[in-house]
């Protein structure tokens, strides 16, 4: 009897030991990855659902998605990367600026497919002519441009400018709507040097010299834009809430003013489509008109966010597996459709996306307009978007043009400081 009990005890001990050992081995085999994600609308939620599918198919890899505000990506990510506290992957907009931290996925993925499908945007994450690395893929292509409250035009009986209308035509028309409709402001632009750049390039700004360096950003085209920004604020056409309403390079979105009917035209970009669709509903009719023109072009600024991998990861192979899954055609198709984005994937762009019946007519029309605008983007805009230190240019322009608007600096003083700050950044 005693020997039976002893045997049973030994058996139980053996079984529990092996179960413990097996579960320890299993947990040791599970690779935990972190993805730092920011969202304009539902991007992180959709990514999470897609990652759940990935985890189901790859039980040995677990991806934790940390949803953060855009400011965290903009202000804290690089410090975390320098301090060795980086996530494995992140959704970033400073594409060239973070290049030195990127993991080259080429050895782990089907590089030829990526080169074919992301040919236009892969160079945005590279630095220099010799850089052939594949660091990530665009989760969205964005195009800057205006949104217009058509209802206000209809109610005031003002004719909306059509294709080929200049920035000045738009200023005149929105000022008329503002006056007749007693609207708080005519036009508003997000507080961002990136938004300003599209208008500047249309006005003739070149941003780069013959060597491809931003040594003379303040040219006639840039000055024409800055002068208009100052004048439009002085006239009350643009509101004090956004550009003058902060200091330094602080980013400010003016979307709420457009939603609240405080402004006739909002100069933002394609990433706002989904928010406007959800928040405006049938309060008023909004449209995306063709890009306003200047003497040099009718150009928008391209942009977007990329999902990139960092070389500080301890699991490059697994990270590449996740990236390959997320960038695969069916997954990316679903992502673009559900987040209502312009596709950065050549194959998907050619086949076309079906945004579904849930997406309203204004959204469909807006996507069509922004996609058409993308084809007409000036080469200067593409060069600026692909330039490694473009954030320094954007920050300097927004900081000092805003100070000229508030009267803290004169325009010539602002021009001098813009170039000085850009020169400092390029030197470092």
């Amino acid at each position, binding site marked *: 009897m005693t020997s039976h009990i002893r045997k049973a005890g030994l058996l139980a001990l053996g079984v529990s030991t092996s179960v413990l050992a097996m579960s320890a081995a299993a947990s040791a085999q599970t690779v935990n990855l972190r993805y730092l994600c920011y969202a304009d609308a539902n991007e992180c939620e959709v990514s999470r659902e897609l990652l759940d599918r990935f985890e189901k198919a790859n039980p040995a890899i677990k991806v934790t998605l940390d949803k953060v505000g855009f400011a965290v990506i*903009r*202000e*804290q990510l*690089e*410090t975390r990367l*320098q*301090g060795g506290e980086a996530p494995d992957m992140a959704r970033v907009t*400073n594409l060239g*600026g973070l290049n030195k931290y990127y993991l080259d996925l080429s050895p782990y993925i089907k590089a030829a497919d990526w080169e074919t499908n992301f040919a236009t945007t892969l160079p945005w994450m590279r630095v220099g002519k010799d850089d052939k690395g594949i660091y990530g893929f665009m989760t969205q292509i964005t195009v800057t441009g205006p949104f217009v409250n058509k209802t206000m035009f209809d109610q005031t009986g003002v004719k909306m400018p059509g294709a080929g209308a200049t920035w000045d035509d738009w200023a005149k028309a929105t000022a008329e709507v503002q006056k007749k409709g007693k609207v708080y402001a005519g036009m508003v632009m997000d507080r961002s040097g990136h938004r300003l750049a599209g208008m500047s390039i249309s006005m003739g700004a070149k941003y780069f010299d013959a060597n491809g360096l931003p040594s003379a950003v303040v040219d006639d085209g840039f000055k024409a834009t800055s002068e208009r920004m100052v004048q439009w604020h002085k006239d009350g056409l643009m509101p*004090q*809430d956004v550009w*003058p*309403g*902060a*200091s*330094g*390079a*602080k980013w*400010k979105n003016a979307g709420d003013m457009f939603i*609240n009917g405080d402004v006739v035209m909002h100069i933002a970009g394609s990433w706002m489509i989904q928010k406007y669709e959800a928040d405006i509903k049938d309060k008023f009719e909004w449209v995306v008109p063709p890009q306003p023109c200047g003497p040099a072009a009718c150009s928008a600024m391209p942009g977007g966010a990329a999902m990139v991998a960092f070389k500080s990861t301890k699991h490059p192979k697994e990270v590449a597996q996740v990236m390959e899954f997320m960038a695969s055609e069916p997954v990316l198709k679903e992502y673009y459709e559900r987040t209502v984005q312009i596709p950065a994937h050549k194959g998907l762009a050619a086949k076309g996306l079906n945004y579904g019946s849930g997406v309203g007519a204004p959204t469909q029309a807006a996507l069509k307009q922004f996609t058409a605008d993308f084809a007409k983007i000036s080469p200067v805009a593409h060069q600026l978007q692909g330039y490694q*230190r473009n*954030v*320094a240019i954007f*920050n300097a322009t927004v900081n000092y043009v*805003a*100070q000229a*608007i*508030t*009267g*803290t*600096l004169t325009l010539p*003083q602002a021009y001098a*400081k813009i170039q*000085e*700050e850009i020169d*400092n*950044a390029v030197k*470092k």
Partner: protein
Amino acid sequence: MSAALTWIWKALGDLIDGPLRSLQKHIGAHRMAYVFLAPNLIIFGLFSFWPMLLNFYIAFTGGQSVILAERPLIGVENFRELLACPSYLDPRTCPVAGYSFWTGLWNTLFFALVQVPIMVVVALVTALILNRNIRGRGFWRAVYFYPVMLSPVVVAVIWDWILKRRGILNALLDDMVSGWNDLARSGVWFEIGLGLILLLPLLPVTRALLARIASPHRLRLSHGLAVGLAILLSTWLARSGGLVLPDYRPVNWLIDQRAGWPMFWVIFVYTWGHLGFYMLILLAGLQAIPRDLYEAAEMDGTSRFRSFWRITLPLLMPTMVVVLVLSLIRAFQVFDEVYVLTGGGPGQATKMIIQHIYESAFIGDAKRYGIAAASSVLVAGLLMVLTLVQLLVTRRRAGG
């Protein structure tokens, strides 16, 4: 239960008693104080003193990496960049780093010079009131202290809701203006009400005007004249629309620079958020003053104002010095509330020195940790000088 706890406590005491006694034997009784101070000193050293030293070192290095080994020593280059200004009084003449630094510094100095006296006076008045036997004293003390427990960001977000263009303050003012205009247009009842109000100042005026008339009906005459004038005036004012206010145009309290509103509200919100802390210190100081001094003064017939001037203020002076020094240091550290409320704007109007340090280090493409650290060192130096001056002045005044 209690016996068990006592036993455990005693056992613990016995356990450390032996080692401490033997340590005392080795190092001597006069050095034992350091042993007891050690835990606190280690924590202070690790989390305060060591970062300060690191900051000092980084101030003399260049590059954009946060890793010390990757930062080359560049001597006083960062300080030179900050101080290379043709005119410190006009920061616009400085290169970009100096421009941001000096703008932030002047704004912070202005903020501190205005906000600290306001804070001390308001905290003192509040403490004096709450030190008296008023009804619901505990409740009022809690009310004034409550904002201190809130995060500065929460304080700023609350006030942002109140002060923004579509905020509560503008809505209230708009309602008041439209309410008054509705009343002014309401017709005969408004005229009667206005007439009655006008009657109050008109009665003594007409009485004075007719004072020299020697008539038994003088009083009736003056009253009749006052009533007549009141009817005439109220009818004319109400029907001419002279009392109808123009439609209220919402003020951008945090952006409209014309009357200095952004700086005013920054000072107001900061004072509101921190008042309770200084009030509590002063309240403790007030309660430490012996009551018999006031009783003696009262027996001598001393006025309340004289009691305050001769007893309260001199005896409260050591506490006041603490409040002054603390509020000055904290005024120089102002950041969170201002950054959330105004973002340093409009233009650079409310950009404080800590915002300059934060933006130099963390915002933008080029992370200028060296410039940020050098700025911190300069501000720390300035703060030390100001505190010393403040201590010397107050000590001299107190006759110490």
